[in-house]
C-alpha cells in the first residue's frame, strides 16, 4: 500500500482492503462508448430555413478553401479514472476512485497547432461521504486530509506530484458507488472545460473569425449552485454568451436515440446522408443542461470506406444563445458556413493511429494527443497509492 491510502486510512478511520488497483479506461471497455448517449427528440427546426432534405455543402466548402478556416481553437478534456482500493467505513465497503484530468486547448496559427492558454492537469481522489462521518458534508475534513496527502506524496522526480482536490460522492443506493465516484471526476472535468471556455472569452480570443471546436457534446449537466457556487451552468444567460463562437462536435452518437417528435427515430435520415451532406438543423431542449441546442449531422467520409454506415458522420451542436435564435432558429447561412468550414477540416486523417479516424477531426485529434501526453503513466499513478 502506498502513501496516499495509508494517510486516508489513518485520517478517516477507514480500513483498507488493499484490493486490486486498475484503470477503468484500460479494463472497462465493454459495449460502445458514445460521446453522446441520451435521447434527443427532433422537435422543431433549429435554423431559419425550413429544409426538408439534406443539403450538400461540398461546393460551399470548396469555395472556402482559399480562405483561412474560422476554427482557430480546439478544446479537449479527458480523464483517466482508477479504482485504487476498497475501504470500509462504518462497516460498509466503498470503492476509492482516483483520477487524472487533463483539459487542453490548442490554437491553430499558420496551419500548425500550438498550445493556447495554460494546460490544466488535475489529480483528484473521490471518497464516499461516509469517510467523513463527523462532518455535515465532509468538506471541512476533506481539506486537511488533502493537505496531509500532499505532504506525504513526493515523487522522486523533478517536481513533486500534488493532488488538487478530494471529491466526495454520496452513498445513496441509487447507483453503483464506483459509477458515482467516476461521475464526480467527470463533473470536475466538465467544470474545467467550461472554465477554459470562459477564459478564452475573457481573453477576447473568440470572435466570428475564430471559433472554438469542443470535442464532444456541449450538453453539460446543470450543477446545483448550492453545491457549487462557481458553477458555470449553461442555463444562465451570461454563461451562454460564452458559447456564441463555440460548437461541439461529437464523433459518436447513438443513432437509435435520435427520436422524431411523435415517435420513431430519425436514424434513417442520418444513415442516408451522402458525402458532404448535412441534415436540417433542429432545436433540442436539454433538460440536463437546461438549455436549448441547435443540432445537425454532417457526413465527412464516404460510407464506402467506413465500417458502419454511421462512421464518418459528425454530430454538431451549437448552443442557442439568444431568444431570437430560440424562436426563429439560427441563421441557415451561419450553419452552412460553419458546416462548410467543418467539411474542410476532414483532412488530414488519423487513419491507422486511431480507430475512430472516420469521425475524427485532425486538430481535435492532435489536441487529444497533447492532453494525453501530459498524463502520468497509469503504472506510476497507481503506484502512488
Amino acid at each position, binding site marked *: 500500500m502506498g502513501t496516499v491510502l495509508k494517510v486516508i486510512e489513518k485520517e478517516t478511520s477507514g480500513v483498507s482492503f488493499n484490493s486490486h488497483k486498475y484503470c477503468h479506461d484500460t479494463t472497462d471497455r465493454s459495449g460502445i462508448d458514445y460521446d453522446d448517449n441520451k435521447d434527443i427528440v427532433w422537435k422543431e427546426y433549429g435554423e431559419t430555413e425550413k429544409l426538408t432534405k439534406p443539403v450538400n455543402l461540398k461546393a460551399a466548402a470548396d469555395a472556402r478553401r482559399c480562405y483561412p478556416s474560422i476554427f482557430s481553437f480546439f478544446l479537449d478534456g479527458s480523464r483517466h479514472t482508477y479504482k485504487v482500493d476498497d475501504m470500509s467505513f462504518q462497516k460498509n465497503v466503498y470503492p476509492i476512485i482516483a483520477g487524472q484530468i487533463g483539459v487542453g486547448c490548442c490554437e*491553430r496559427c499558420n496551419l500548425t497547432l500550438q498550445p493556447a492558454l495554460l494546460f490544466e492537469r488535475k489529480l483528484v481522489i473521490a471518497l464516499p461521504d461516509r469517510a467523513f462521518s463527523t462532518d455535515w458534508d465532509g468538506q471541512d475534513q476533506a481539506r486537511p486530509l488533502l493537505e496531509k496527502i500532499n505532504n506525504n506524496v513526493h515523487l522522486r522526480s523533478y517536481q513533486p506530484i500534488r493532488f488538487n482536490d478530494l471529491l466526495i460522492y454520496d452513498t445513496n443506493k441509487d447507483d453503483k458507488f464506483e459509477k458515482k465516484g467516476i461521475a464526480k471526476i467527470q463533473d470536475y472535468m466538465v467544470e474545467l472545460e467550461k472554465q477554459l471556455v470562459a477564459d478564452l472569452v475573457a481573453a477576447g480570443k473568440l470572435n466570428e473569425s475564430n471559433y472554438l471546436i469542443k470535442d464532444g457534446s456541449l450538453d453539460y449537466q446543470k450543477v446545483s449552485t448550492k453545491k457549487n457556487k462557481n458553477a458555470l451552468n449553461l442555463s444562465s444567460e451570461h454563461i451562454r454568451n460564452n458559447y456564441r463562437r463555440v460548437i461541439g462536435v461529437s464523433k459518436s452518437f447513438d443513432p437509435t436515440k435520435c427520436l422524431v417528435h411523435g415517435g420513431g427515430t430519425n436514424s434513417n435520415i442520418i444513415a442516408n446522408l451522402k458525402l458532404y451532406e448535412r441534415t436540417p438543423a433542429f432545436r433540442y431542449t436539454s433538460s440536463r443542461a437546461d438549455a436549448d441546442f441547435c443540432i445537425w449531422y454532417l457526413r465527412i467520409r464516404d460510407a464506402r470506406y467506413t465500417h458502419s454506415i454511421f462512421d464518418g458522420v459528425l454530430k454538431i451542436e451549437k448552443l442557442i444563445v439568444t431568444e431570437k435564435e430560440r424562436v426563429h432558429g439560427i441563421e441557415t447561412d451561419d450553419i452552412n458556413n460553419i458546416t462548410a468550414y467543418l467539411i474542410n477540416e476532414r*483532412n*488530414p486523417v*488519423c487513419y491507422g*493511429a486511431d480507430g475512430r479516424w472516420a469521425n475524427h477531426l*485532425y486538430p481535435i485529434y492532435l489536441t487529444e494527443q497533447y492532453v494525453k501526453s501530459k498524463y502520468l503513466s497509469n503504472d506510476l499513478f497507481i503506484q502512488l497509492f
Partner: protein
Amino acid sequence: MSLIGRVIATEKVPTTIDSFCFWTNINLILNPFDVVKVEHINGSKTFAVIEEISHITDSASFLSNFISNDFGDVNTDAPTLRIGMNYAKANVVGNDKNIFIPVQSGQRVYLASRDEVSEALGLADIKNPLVCGYLEMYESSGNDKITLPVNVDSKFLIGPEGAHLNISGISGLAAKTSYAMFLLKAIQDKYLNMEEEDAENDSVAFVVFNVKGRDLLAIDEPNDFEGKTEKAEEVKAKYKMLGLSTKPFSQVKYFYPYSTKTKSNSYAPKELFDKQKQQKKAFQYKFTYEKDKDTIDLMFSNVEDSTQTMAGIINQIVDGQNGFDVISTWPNFIKKLEEQCEAGNTASSKTKEIGVLSWRKFTRHIKKSVYHNPLFNDIDENNGEVRIADKISDIQKNDVYVVDIAKLDSDMQAYVFGNVIRELYNFQLEEKDYSNGKCPPSKIIVFIDELNKFASKDSPKDSPILRQILDIAERGRSLGVVLFAAEQFKSAIHNRVSGNCSTFAYGRTNAIELSNSEYKYIPSVYKNMMTRLKQGEYIVQNPIFRSLLNIRFPEPIQPKRDTGEKPEQQTKRRREPER
C-alpha cells in the same frame, strides 16, 4: 550558442554510450558531420557528430496520407499541417569530463562554438600539426557558421607513427590530384619553415608522378586564375587562413621521358620544356642497358608467369648467363633475344632449360616496350639526359621531383614507376651522403595517381611492381618512404596496400563502389554523402580524428593545366583496360 533541441530517449530507441537522438525545429538546417553539444551530468558537456537527420509525422502509414488527400485527390489542401518533427541521430565523440554514460532524456542540445567543435573533434591539441583542409559547419544556420582549419598529426600521416595516404574518388569530380598537391604543398610549407635543428632529424622530399596530360608539369608556377583577381584573392585568403603560403611549390625538378623529333614521349609543350631546361630544372630520362637491366622484371608486372619461365629468363639476363654477360646496349640485347628465338633452340636440348616458345614470348614483350624506343639508349649528360636512379641518389630535402609518365603506355608507366620506387627504396636503405653540404631527406613522399594500374587486386600475385608497392606499404613507414596514392575505386586496390594506409580521403564516388565490403563500416548516411560531395570536398579518416571529417580544401595555388591530349588520344586511354 543556440539551443536547438532536446534529447529523446524511448524504450525502443534509447540513448547509448555511442549515440543518441534529439529533436529539432523542422526549419533548422543541420548537416551530417555538424557537431552538437549536450548538457550532461555533473555539469559536463557531451559532444556528438550528427550522423542522420529524419523527418517524421504522426501518419501511421502511407495509406493514411493517401486517405488524407480524399483518397487520392492530388489537389487537396488541408487547413492543418500534419504534426511532424525533425530528429537527428548523433554519434558521441567525447565528454569534457570523460563521462560516458548515455546522455539523458530531455537534455538541452546546442550548436557548438568554434573552440568546442575543435575540442569535440580532437583537433584542439594535435601535436605536429599539419593542415589537411578546413571544415565549415552550421553553414545554413545564419550567424553561427564556423570555419575551422583541420590539422592532422604529421607523424600519423607521413610517419613514423602511421604512414601512407589513399585518396579515392571518381575522375574530375573528386579532384584527387588537386587534393594530393594541396597536402604536399602543406607538407613542403611546414618543412620549409621548420627550425634548422628540427630539420636535421626530420626532413622530407617529394617524388610526384605526372600520369595525366600536363597536370603537374608547372607546379612551381603561380596560378593566374584566368585573370580573375577576385577569385585569386579569395583562394589566397583561404591559404592564409590555413596558415599556408600563397606561393607555389619550390625546389621542383621535372623529369621527362626522352623524346626525339620523330617520337614524342611527353605532353609537355616544347616551350615549357625549353624554359624549364634553361632554368636547369628539366631533365630527360633514359634507361641504359648496363645499369637498368636489373629492372627488366618490372616490364612483366602484368604478365602471368605461373611456370616462372619469364622469371627464369630475367635471372639469366641479370646474372649474365647464357651469353648475356657481354651485352652492353639495348639493340644488342634485342639481337641476342632474337637469337634465342630461332628455330631449333628447343627445350629438348639438355643445356637449355627454357623453351624457345618462352623466349619468343619474352622477346615479344620486351620489344613492345624497348624496340626503337628512344627512352632506351645511352645517356648524353651534356644534353640534359639523366638516369632517374642517378638523380634520386642526389635528392635533397624539400626537393620535388616530378616524373612525367603521362604519354607512356601502361606497361611503360608501370616500368618507370617501379623503377623509381625501387631506387627510392634502395636509396632509403643505403647509407646517405651528407658530404659537401648535402642534405638528403629522411623521408620521401611518393605521389602516384591511378594506383589501380600497379596495385590492383587483379594484379598477378608475383607481379614485381606489386611486390615493390607492398614492400613500401608494409615497411615504408619505418624506412621513410611514404606513399600518397590515388585511384578511382578504393575497392580495386590490393587489400594489403589499402590496409596499411593510415589516412583515407574519400572524394565523390558512386553507389556501386560504395556497395563494396570495404565501405561497410561507414554509416549509410555518410556513404550517401560520398555520392554527392562537391569538388573540393572530402571525407577524411585518420587515427587521430575521433570521427570521420567532412573537409574542404582551397583551389590549387599552382596552375591547373589542360590534359594536353587530343580527343582521340583521350578516347584511346579510356578504352585501355585498367588492370
